[in-house]
């Protein structure tokens, strides 16, 4: 009695899917096993019967009708890319909102950080940066920092008035 692997090997022999060495082994086995020969003959008959070909299955629709449906499908698929265009305002909106949201989040995080490290509630400080017209105002109680720049810069305007005087 042939085992499962032998049966499959016999089929692979028929289908020419074996290596040369395996083919020789199967041929030697076939020379001494009539059961294997009978099974191979059955597999070969089925293979030969199928070689006659398939029954024709005719298209049940006319050429025009069949093509018209394909054409409609093609046109409809080509229209599909317009869908993102319709929603492009949404994409543009998202492109605008996402960076703004990120900036807002950074500012909020900054405010929260400042309020967390509030060293002395109620203490205010004001500072003028040397050689510039930038003023920084920090309200520790409110957790708020303001920086303002005078424009035109006060130093620049005084410089220009000096130049005017020299002229």
């Amino acid at each position, binding site marked *: 009695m042939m085992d*499962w692997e032998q*049966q*499959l090997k016999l*089929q*692979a022999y028929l*289908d020419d*899917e074996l290596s040369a060495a395996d083919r020789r082994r199967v041929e030697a086995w076939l020379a001494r096993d009539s*059961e294997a020969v*009978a*099974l191979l*003959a*059955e*597999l070969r*008959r*089925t*293979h030969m*019967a*199928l*070689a*006659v*070909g*398939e*029954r*024709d*299955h*005719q*298209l*049940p*629709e006319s*050429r025009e009708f*069949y*093509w018209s*449906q*394909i*054409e409609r*499908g*093609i046109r409809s*698929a080509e229209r599909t890319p317009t869908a993102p265009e319709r929603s492009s305002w949404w994409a543009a909106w998202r492109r605008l909102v996402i960076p703004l949201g990120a900036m807002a989040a950074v500012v909020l995080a900054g405010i929260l950080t400042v309020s967390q490290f509030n060293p002395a509630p109620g203490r205010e400080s004001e500072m003028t940066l040397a050689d510039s017209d930038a003023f920084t105002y920090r309200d520790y109680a409110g957790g708020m920092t303001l920086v303002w720049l005078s424009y035109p810069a006060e130093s620049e305007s005084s410089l220009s008035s000096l130049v005017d005087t020299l002229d």
Partner: protein
Amino acid sequence: MKTERASSALADDALVRAAQAGDLQAFEELVARHRDKIYARAYSMMRNEEDAMDLSQEAWIKGWQRLNQFQGDSSFATWMTRIVINLCLDAIRRQKRQRAESIEEMDEDSGGVERHMPVVTVNPTERLERAELRARIDEAMDKLSPAHRTVLILHEFENMEYKLIAQTMRCSIGTVMSRLFYARRKLAALLADLKPAKPS
């Protein structure tokens, strides 16, 4: 004969090139030439006219969309046949999922019967005319499970090797071999059992 084949292949190639450039009329001509073959393959796998119509038309739409991927490694008809086969396999998988089964695991367990089936020693198709033999094979194919039928179609009619069938059906070569074995043995038994076909 060879010249005729070559010229028809060239004509297809020219149509494909035109279609690749966006010529829908050229594509319509390709559809007209190969629609019967594509429909027949869909029908042989699905065994249902409606499914075969839908899937073959879907294959043509996909063919148009992917036309630029066609490099001419095979004939255009072969390329289109691969598309329709893949669509049919997807449809069979969907149908099986709906029935809470899987094409990958089906039928192997029930194949034990074929391992011990007595060998058919007579040739039941010996004296049949070609048309009658085709009709009988078709009738027998109808009785096979989709997985067995598919592997038989891919191997015997599409001339695919085990490895390519395994890739197409997304299973192992071992599974292909066992399915093919079951399918052949079942088909042999079915052909032996079939009553004479009705005269057409």
